[in-house]
């Protein structure tokens, strides 16, 4: 792997009680790369993503993001403040949007700027509007989430994460909770971000989108990376039997 990696994960393990969800995962991401993680439900791909910003506490392993490194040894306490500081390097987009319902779209976007970065409101508002514009929702800035469609909510959530100007954007199945006709608008925003050179790690079941946008795909199976490569390599010439079994039915559907 190249030396200028912005994210480097080494031998990451995660246990949930007696369940060994991640069994030593290592990979790295270079700036401007779009990495897509695919795999069956329960394979550990979401857990992997959530470990990167410490929403799940890794059980052991090393995570290195933008020059800040944290090594966790199983059974010992680690520096939580360091983990929280590293969190600001990543922006997270959730499956269920998780917008703050008591705030308008604009207030959602500027909440981190005002509360965490202590930016004065008169500076944060133009910045918030800039990011709402980026996702095409500047005219909804004063609406509360309940008056937005699912696709609009997810776009606001993307703007909220972007506003913190993270080095890497993490997407945890961003379209899985959306009605089919609303998926396109969210994927379009993500394609635009990829085009602009945003570093992204995306967990998704949208294989067509993965093929379009990914520089590299990781196929995760039962807590390990079974195979990784470019979309062409994985979809057309899978080396691993498990990858082939997973992708074959999907390819058949797409050929129809």
């Amino acid at each position, binding site marked *: 792997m190249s030396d200028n990696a912005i994210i480097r994960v080494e031998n990451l393990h995660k246990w949930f009680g007696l369940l060994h969800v991640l069994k030593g995962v290592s990979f790295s991401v270079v700036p401007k790369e779009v990495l897509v993680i695919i795999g069956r439900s329960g394979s550990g791909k979401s857990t992997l993503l959530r470990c990167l*910003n410490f929403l799940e506490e890794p059980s052991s392993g090393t995570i290195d993001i933008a020059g800040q490194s944290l090594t966790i040894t199983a059974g010992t306490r680690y520096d939580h403040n360091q983990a929280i500081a590293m969190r600001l390097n990543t922006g997270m987009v959730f499956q269920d949007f998780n917008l703050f319902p008591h705030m308008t779209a604009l207030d959602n976007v500027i*909440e981190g700027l005002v509360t965490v970065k202590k930016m004065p409101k008169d500076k944060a508002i133009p910045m918030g509007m800039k990011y709402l514009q980026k996702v095409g929702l500047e005219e909804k800035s004063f609406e509360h989430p309940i008056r937005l469609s699912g696709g609009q909510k997810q776009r606001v959530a993307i703007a909220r994460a972007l506003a913190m100007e993270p080095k890497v954007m993490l997407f945890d199945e961003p379209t899985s909770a959306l009605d089919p006709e609303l998926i396109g608008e969210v994927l379009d925003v993500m394609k635009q971000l990829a085009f602009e050179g945003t570093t992204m790690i995306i967990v998704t079941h949208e294989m067509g989108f993965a093929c379009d946008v990914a520089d590299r795909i990781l196929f995760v199976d039962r807590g390990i990376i079974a195979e990784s490569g470019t979309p062409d390599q994985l979809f057309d010439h899978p080396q691993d039997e498990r990858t082939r079994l997973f992708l074959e039915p999907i390819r058949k559907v797409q050929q129809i």
Partner: protein
Amino acid sequence: MAVETMKFPGQPGSDPDLDMCHALLAQQRRERLIRTTKIGVVWVILIIILTILLLQFNFSPAYVYQHYGFVLAGLPLTIGISLASILAATVLALLGAVSKLSNNSIAQGIAGLYVSLVRGTPLLVQIFIIYNGLPQIGTALIAKGMPQIGHLFILTAIQSGILALSLNYGAYMTEIFRAGIQSISGGQREAAESIGMNRVQILRRVILPQAVRVIIPDIANQFIAMQKDSALVSFMGIWEMTYRANRFARQDSKFMEMFVIAALLYWLLTIVSSWFEGLLEKRMRHAYER
């Protein structure tokens, strides 16, 4: 709720479908009005029956008329004690709930013992301990040459009343706050964490604003209950409504008259409070209406 507030475009007669909708809504409104009216009539009939019954047993309306002002004069004190206590209780409950949900063993221990102890003892006993019991410690401390600290334990009746009500309701409301905080989905906390907020920021900016909206009916309910429990402070000789009613009731043996006055005033206070609560809930609903 939403149906009857909807506005439809167009004049009646311009569109048959719209007319059908108008007719259905009018029918709903009519039925609701009839039901409300019937319930109101039942209330009025019941109150008339109770009044007639009361008047059969040597009940003197003239005495009520003469003395209601004396009981009414205690209303500000009842309201004042309840308001001060509900405010203090809310602060205690917030601290209690946050402590119970924290990772800090000391905070958890203190909050747990507080809730258990206070919920496990009667309010009246707590009032006696604070008003009559604490001065024993106070005088002992003064005797040992610590007058400043000692005097802190000797409270006036009103101070004792407010302290007892606050402590008591704070314990019950701790559980209300705890449940309210826990009712906010984990996703909200995760989203706040993902943009780098710390625990205090998450509580103050994300969790509490949502939790408070959920528990406003419960807090209002506690406030309404407290207004009546404030009658217990009359045991310490505070001139609130119950004490005032009791005074003439004993002197003239007019128990029914005086306590009916007090009861009606408490009831009125509850009705007004419920109305205020309705207003508050309406205001907080704004962000959640499509």
